């Protein structure tokens, strides 16, 4: 947003529908107006400087009634939802929530293709893997790696990786990146669980830990995915769901 490109703007605090939606929807109007413009959020934000934007500017645009413009910025898709901003905000402004609402205003088909594709992939697979890994793929990879480890490493001759074990205490899920591209990275956690004698299990369905539908701000799909995972946990009668994401 270079200076020359911006004409003098007559401020209209009323703003557009997005601002109203936020103010009506969030508790205390999202504390939107409370912003002290101290910049704490932006000095800790990994997305600061991208597209010449930062969380403070985003919020300021909303305050000054430039909400429609702000919501349309590609920058809203660069937020990682890490919450470093709200963690320190002296006015407790929930910036990630507002960013999420901004994403929601985008027609689904205009949202970033990568995130959208990953969400759709997860919706279309019983594993909820954003990379589209199938139940059998996962089973195969896990068994393959276990075997390899048992053979190669003296310490791990008895390594067990339970799959679909009913009544296990912990249900463990897994980001699809590991089984699909870096299978060896799953091993350290197995070793730990084995060493402490944890009663745990994987499942060949509902194991995908990632949830791109949340990042896509597709609330319905987000919920659907979480429900599917929950059903898996419940069907295995596990007591604790360990989400490694």
């Amino acid at each position, binding site marked *: 947003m270079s*200076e020359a490109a911006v004409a003098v703007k007559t401020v209209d605090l009323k703003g557009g529908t997005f601002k109203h939606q936020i103010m009506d929807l969030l508790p205390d109007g999202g504390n939107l107006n409370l912003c002290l413009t101290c910049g704490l959020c932006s*000095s*800790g934000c990994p997305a600061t400087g991208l597209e010449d934007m930062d969380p403070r500017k985003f919020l300021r645009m909303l305050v000054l009634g*430039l909400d429609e413009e702000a919501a349309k910025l590609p920058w809203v898709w660069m937020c990682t939802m890490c919450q470093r901003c709200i963690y320190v905000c*002296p*006015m407790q402004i929930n910036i990630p929530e507002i960013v999420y609402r901004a994403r929601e205003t985008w027609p689904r088909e205009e949202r970033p293709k990568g995130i959208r594709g990953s969400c759709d992939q997860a919706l279309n697979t019983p594993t909820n893997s954003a990379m589209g890994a199938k139940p059998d793929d996962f089973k195969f990879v896990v068994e393959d790696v276990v075997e390899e480890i048992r053979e190669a490493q003296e310490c791990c001759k008895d390594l067990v990786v339970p799959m679909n074990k009913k009544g296990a205490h912990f249900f463990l899920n897994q980001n699809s990146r590991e089984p699909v591209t870096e299978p060896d990275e799953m091993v350290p956690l197995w070793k730990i669980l084995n060493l402490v004698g944890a009663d745990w299990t994987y499942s060949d369905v509902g194991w995908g830990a990632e949830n791109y539908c949340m990042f896509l701000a597709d609330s319905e799909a987000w919920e659907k995915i979480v429900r599917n995972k929950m059903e898996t946990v419940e069907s295995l009668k596990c007591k604790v769901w360990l989400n490694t994401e």
Partner: protein
Amino acid sequence: MKKTYGALVVGAGVGGIRAALDLAETGQSVALIDKKPNIGGILTQLDYQFPNDHCGMCKMLPLTERDGSSQFCMRKGLFHRNIDIMLSTEVTALEGEPGKFMVTLRKRSAFVDPNKCIGCGKCSEVCPVKVKSDFNAGLTKRSAIYLPVPHNIPNHYVVDLDNCLRCWQCYNACPTGAIDFKFEERQGFHILVADSDPKTFEDMKDWLQDQNFPLRHVFDGDAAVDALADQSRQVRILFLDMGLPGSDPEKVLRRGLELNPDLHVVLMAQPDQEQAARELAGQGAKDVLLKPFEPKRFVPWLDKLYMRMMSDETLDLDVGAVILAGGFECYDPGEVGDVLGYGREPAVVTSVEFERMCSGTGPSNAKLIRPGDNKPIKKIAWLQCVGSRDLKKKADYCSSVCCMISIKEALLAKKLTKGEAETTIFYMDMRTFGKEYERYRQNAEANDGVKFVNARIHSVVPADQTSGSKDIKVLYLDEAGRLQEEVFDLLVLAVGARPPVGTKELAEALGIETNEWGYCKTRYFTPSRTSAYGIFAAGSYNGPKDIAETLIQSGAAALEASRIITIYAPLTERTPEPQPEYRNVSRETPKILIALCTSCPILEQTVDMDSLVARLGGLASVAQVAKIGSACTKPGWEEIEALADKHSPNRILIGACQPYAYIPKLRELGQTIGLNPALMDVVDIFTPTAARQGEDKGAVEREVFSALSMASVRLLGADPTPLPPATQVTRKALVVGGGLAGMTAAMGIADHGYAVSLVEEQETLGGQAMNIRYTLNDEDPVKFMEDLIDSVQKHPNITVYKDARVVLSSGRAGRFTSVIATDQGAVSFDHGATVLATGGREANVYDYGFRVHKCVMTQRELEDQLASGALDTSALSGVAMIQCWRSRDEGRSYCSRVCCGQALKNLLMLKKRNPELPVYVFYRDIMTYGFAETYYTQARKAGAVFIRYDLKDKPKVEFEDKVPVITARDPILQREIQVRPSLLVLSGGIEPNEVSDLQEMFGVEVNADGFFQEAEYKWRPVDFLKQRLFMCGLARAPGNMSETIASAKAAAQRAVRILSEMRLTSGSVIAEVRHSLCSLCGKCISVCPYGARSLDLEQDMILVDELLCQGCGACAAVCPNSASLLRGFRDQQVLSVIDAALNGLNYGRARAAEPETATQTEGGES
């Protein structure tokens, strides 16, 4: 015996001290208590204070009747004849009513006898405990027996019983037996164990065999009751088992407490009996111990319990009024340590820790080196608002002082590194709202290169993890919105204020209310009154304040307390102390009596007393040298009196410890034997012996001899002519200015029974405050002003002159005559004190279409229209406000401090009437200091938009069809924006009224901005340099109604202090003129900081007003002819002292070559 005081002051920081001194100086007796073992509060830790960046606490000491109090560094101690200081003391209960409160205090023992402790430090050396030192803000360690502050006089060690291991090593190491652990007394301290299980008793007996306690055992409840009833062996502690057979524990407890209400009952319970035991504890048992006991914990626990029971005291006082001055605590950033790295990175410190790092008594000897790795610190960042202005930390308020502290610290860092340090302050709003603050900031930025960055930093990480460097890296957004990464040697967290620990409990004990942030609650128009009548809030107790405002608040509290006490013992009716009559010894040959106190065992061990006595006897004019017992005890003092009686000396020199403690005693002695105390002196002969123990005997003796011989020649040269006679005081006051400040001051003085003339230039009373129609906190200023004017006009002691001016004023301290011109003619008025409250006005600068377009108005006009209903807020499309309109700019480089509050007040009123109305505030720094911050939060919450601008880029205002078009740059978006409101409201700020005629008449100064110049910004905020003249209200500095009331009351209290005396006597150290040598060059007149010198044209001589003179000696130093003299420091006298000191160096040699040569000091008479 129960003691009675005029007032109890709780908290002995500067706020408490100011209130105590204000009352003590008017003759009220004051009990000054503090829960800490030292006075001075947080100021003991801060060596440097804005604006001159050094200390100045001593400037609080009385300037009149100086001899009634200590006249040395106040960080070292305080003494005033009307103040009793009680340390480690807290209030536990209060009953009664204003004028006759009954207070119960609890004084925790230090377990060290101050009369025996010589401060040698042996105890501390052997103590195995090491805990964080409070004094050095945790940067150093201290023992469990320690000096609370290193600089106090007297400085006695105290035992921190909570951290004590009860190893008794200090007890054994003390050379004077000063540590009192009540060992012998244990035999009379009976402990009863009531338990059916014999093992409990056997174990205890076994564990406690070294403790010297008589332990008894009973097996059932009935036997326990019998044992408790045995008066000859009264039980002090009862261990009562919950499963005791016979009479059940409840009965035993009840009976025990009936027999002895002070019985300390400890309930012993099995884990399953704990609940029942806790319930029973509610009926008067003091402790519950769960079985089984651990001897390692049990023995020291019991020992400490015994120590507290035997040594701690409960004191009952009758007091007229109570003043609370508990100060504030600093926020502990430990809880945000995870992001700011405090506690994890040694490079992250709090502002108090930084002050200690800069201090000569701090951890690094005033060298700026980093804790942890001792790296010299060159690059420092300050982060503001840590724990302030933060909803998340439940601190929706501004701590008011941190901005100035950080600027001062940045300048200090520059000074300590000879300008090398790079300093950056990260801030949200630089709150430079106080008098001279803005100029200080501007100078820091422009002249000293302190960098100010408007940003907050998110987190602190090690700069380079691989190298092991302790440097830290911070990320922040610069003013252009770019992310910056910067490495610093040190990050100082400007920690905010919190109410003092224990405020809640104290508030409950006293029945006072606290506000939502836990500070003592006071009302807007009665800023020093708590919710309980007769209990007042001084200093920072009702909210954080800087030193100047702390003292003003304390002065106001003192006035309120004084008013209450006066009802019971009116000051005007009090008979003055008889003036001591001293015999005139000026024609006698000097005759010195030297008395040496020998109570300390170390003295005789380290010094050959006979030789010392013989040598002292050989000094010039020494008539007698006597060894006496303890000079500080009654029999010891009687010995001195008897000696003085017998030999009738005309100079008395006492060698003892703690010379300051003898000031009141010398005065008494003077009265008894008719000798001026100025001809007496006490010399500390113990510090050298304690400090140089183990050294060669001769060296110590030489030092003691040297100190005594120097004092003896000084006494020899002391001027024996009597002091000038006391001046009669005209006990009336003149108050110039009939606004809120003047009227409040007049009421304060008149309520004490003194006549006041109140002179107002206008035809009506009220001044600027009459323009205020409502307040931020929903008070009714209109009614308040009506009532005040009514009270002033009806007050029997106040004469109001309206449409009148003071045209002439002359006279000297305590006795002025002024002429008031009224429409009825001139009136002459004699008065002893003067208060100047000439006020100020809203500044009008014709700019931004003001007075051209109807839609442009000042905040005052908007307030008026809102109050009268003339403005229809529903018809408005938007309102814009511009702050700092010609304030904090060229020509007016100060913040008017009321404008931000006024804008918020109007803004919230607009929003209340029309919530949808868009409001834009263009501002530079929002100055909502203290609890006003919450209104800034409310304003934003209500939807007002705040847009920062700076001086380089001010908002531009144009008009299109009479509608203002404001173009400004939003610094966040870095975009030009425009607003087209229906109203443009300007904050013009406050200007002082023109006072040049008064300046000339009263000989007072104004500062660069035209406000009255106080004697000292911080320490004497309502005094003029010229005594008997006081200032308050807008003429002193901008302030809201509450602040104006506080300053007026503080000024009134200062005036009452003068008027409470029938007559005033000068101090014993004052300047004089030898007219025969004086060439009338006038150098002394201009150099005198107190305006005490004047040229009398009729007599052609320089006169010294002995009441204004403070004995600083500047005149004597500047005089080319030695015509200016300082009593007690004449040239001859000082030279003789130097001679004596040099002679002392030869002492060892002279001693070897007995008999000694005659001392070189001839009589010092001039």
